[in-house]
């Protein structure tokens, strides 16, 4: 029986709405010895978790459905929302089945959260996962391979079994397939955005934070097949890239509002981990060296990653605009997000130099009032249609 987009997206929506992570709980309970490893944005090598017999679980805050009560007691008003809702998830036992947590090197808030986790949840193995900002194989590469080895050891300790090179190679193959399919979905949406509404693509990608990679690969294939068959009206929308939302996620309604206001989102940075490596990670040879090489030389760009070459600063965004034939960029950043907000003026300068229009606004994961967003995005879409060069 063929799955329709609505059936598939309904499943993704249910996964998205479930803040008790029932899928992951059931997955773990199904086979003794399975482990679940939570990770925060923007990137961790999920291959290692998978190779350790684990389920990588993306922990992306509590969204707009979680009432944050205790989490607020840990943070001042001028700190973003994702750490407080993540703490809320922890202290309300919604993550009590998680065996280990990884906190990637994205900003000082998430970095410090790694230490808070050690204190608040001492029975959970937690690790700050550092990535190199030096991109030479013999410098940053050596450091990173060592970090990967330490992570491998930690996962072996948590799972109680060694993580072999062969197992990592097999996981790399699965994630290569996953990334290829994710790229295909993004390319499909950029080609025919009316057939792949961004809220659907978002939920589909978000499912990849929860389900096994094998299952996500199936879902991506099914979506591509089903979406191609959909007949949906093609609107005279402007094509935009959304950037700055790589950590604390926007409410789903915000994504819908942007499209309702007349903008097709043709590229975004919502969940970079899904497509961090831009092409396949090599499978032959030392798998950790291959993961390191992919990180150093074949990974995406975001403000948490240093750009050594001033001349290349921000060009990835220009390239995304060109590749997807976008007509403008929306900077949508969480309030108090240091990486996104410090980066923004530099990216805006680069866009201005390339005559690419942009607008900017801030949100929180629990923002409820969408009217201002709709008005801003609508005005932006109109201005593109009226004033941009044909």
């Amino acid at each position, binding site marked *: 029986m063929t799955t329709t987009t609505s059936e598939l997206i309904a499943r993704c929506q249910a996964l998205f709405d479930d803040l008790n992570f029932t899928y992951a709980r059931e997955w773990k309970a199904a086979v003794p010895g399975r482990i679940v490893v939570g990770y925060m944005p923007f990137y961790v090598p999920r291959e290692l978790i998978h190779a350790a017999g684990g389920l990588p679980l993306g922990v992306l805050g509590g969204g707009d459905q979680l009432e944050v009560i205790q989490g607020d007691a840990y943070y001042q008003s001028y*700190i973003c929302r994702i750490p407080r809702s993540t703490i809320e998830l922890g202290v309300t036992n919604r993550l009590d089945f998680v065996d280990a947590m990884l906190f990637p090197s994205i900003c000082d808030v998430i970095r410090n*959260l790694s*230490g808070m986790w050690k204190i608040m949840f001492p029975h959970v193995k937690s690790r*700050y996962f550092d990535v190199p900002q030096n991109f030479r194989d*013999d410098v940053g590469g*050596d450091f990173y391979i060592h970090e990967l080895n330490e992570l491998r050891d930690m996962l072996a300790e948590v799972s109680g079994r060694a993580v072999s090179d062969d197992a990592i190679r097999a996981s790399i193959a699965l994630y290569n397939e996953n990334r290829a399919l994710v790229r295909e979905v993004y390319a499909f949406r950029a080609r025919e955005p009316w057939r792949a509404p961004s809220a659907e693509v978002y939920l589909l990608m978000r499912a990849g934070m929860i389900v096994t990679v094998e299952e996500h690969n199936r879902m991506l294939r099914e979506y591509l097949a089903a979406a191609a068959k959909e007949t949906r009206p093609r609107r005279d929308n402007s094509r935009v890239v959304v950037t700055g939302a790589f950590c604390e996620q926007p409410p789903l309604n915000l994504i819908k509002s942007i499209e309702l206001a007349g903008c097709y989102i043709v590229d975004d940075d919502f969940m970079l981990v899904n497509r961090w490596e831009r092409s396949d990670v090599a499978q032959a040879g030392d798998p950790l060296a291959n993961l390191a090489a992919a990180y150093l030389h074949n990974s995406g760009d975001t403000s948490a990653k*240093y750009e050594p070459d001033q001349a290349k600063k921000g060009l990835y965004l220009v390239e995304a605009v060109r590749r997807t034939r976008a007509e403008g960029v929306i900077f949508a950043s969480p309030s108090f997000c240091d990486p996104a907000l410090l*980066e*923004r003026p*530099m990216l805006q300068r680069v866009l201005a130099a390339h005559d690419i229009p942009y607008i900017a606004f801030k949100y929180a994961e629990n923002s409820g009032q969408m009217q201002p967003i709709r008005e801003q995005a609508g005005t932006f879409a109109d201005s593109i249609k009226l004033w941009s060069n044909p």
Partner: protein
Amino acid sequence: MTHPNAAQVIKDSAMLKQKEMIASNYSKLETAATDGRKVAATFVPGNLNELIMCFDMLNNLPEINAIQNGMRKKTGGYIMEAEKRGHSEDVCTYVKADLGMIAKGNIGPDGQKLPAPDLLLLSYTGCFTFMKWFELLRDQYKCETAMLHVPYQGDGKITSNMVSYVVKQIKEEVIPKLERVSGVKFDIDRLRENLARSARAEEDLVWVLESAKAKPSPIDAYFGGVYYIGPIFTAFRGTEDAVEYYRLLRGEISERLARGQGPVTPGGDMSHERYRLVVEGPPNWTSFRDFWKMFYEEGAVVVASTYSKVGGLYDLGFRHDPDRPLESLAEYCLGCYTNRNLPARIDLIEKYMDEYQADGLLINSIKSCNSFSAGQLLVLREIERRTGKPGAFIESDLVDPRYFSPANIKNRLESYFQMIDQRRAGGQSAARAV
């Protein structure tokens, strides 16, 4: 306590010496172009001053410029200028004060034009914002940039992998760029000499900071402490001037200690020590003296502070080591306070609470500084739980005068001091935080 007016404040020899040193560095920066001196801009935590000196380069520190401008009430305008130019109201005000100053002609705190740097030496230690700050400066100056990525102590320890990574970067990235920009060849013996001088100054600094274990404390380790750490955190670590400064300072503090005197404050000698505090977090700079006054008027002395460890943590035994020059620089960078994970920071504060016989912990939470601030409410809880001593939490900012509310802070401090009194009197039901 005596209260001489400002004109009557007598500056000690060490204070005069530091003033001369700072003025001299700004003076050298102003004439760098005519003197043919190259300039490196770099940050306080994880700075490589001994290495920079090997290349005859001058050291310009954007954070120090922001602090100096903050104390001179100039940063409010600079921050607004940066915000007008598109920088978010949510981000670090050091960054905006610096960018605003550049936008308004790059006139330094002493009223003279600062030179454009020849090299941006980005020591990415303990603070994510540093990386973006230097990318923003690179966008302005279009000059050579050397990145030194210092890994975070996520598990609260320095590993050999971390040291090796930092050393390789110093060898492969930093030194070649310093050589290229300066035209001076690297001489490791010169570095060893500089590091030996650093270690001598560090020894005296630690002695000074630890003098606060005495009752009464002869120093204030936060408000006074920011003066004491000035030379060693900035352009002078590794110089004879710094060695001389700390020798003078130690002598002066020894005398105060022998005489049983309290700290010197802007209001004169503090005669009666009523409260001994540990403070976590940086101070506010735009109302620095008003802020300090709220403490010394109540007889509150800060006996230990974490801010005085942000540019180097020496009281746990680390010293720059001429026998292991590059490794020692790496360990220095890795060991700075905000590069330690939260459990290690809490352990350190607990140790201070105990060893310095503090009455409580005060956290000055800085809006601009997530590196310090994120997690501080947990720090407060943990310290209270472990020590049974009361904590207090106030909020301000580094150099944005809009975020310093004197009445509010004074109220909180007064309530906090009352709470300490109650606790001393045996009242166990004092509120946990004010």
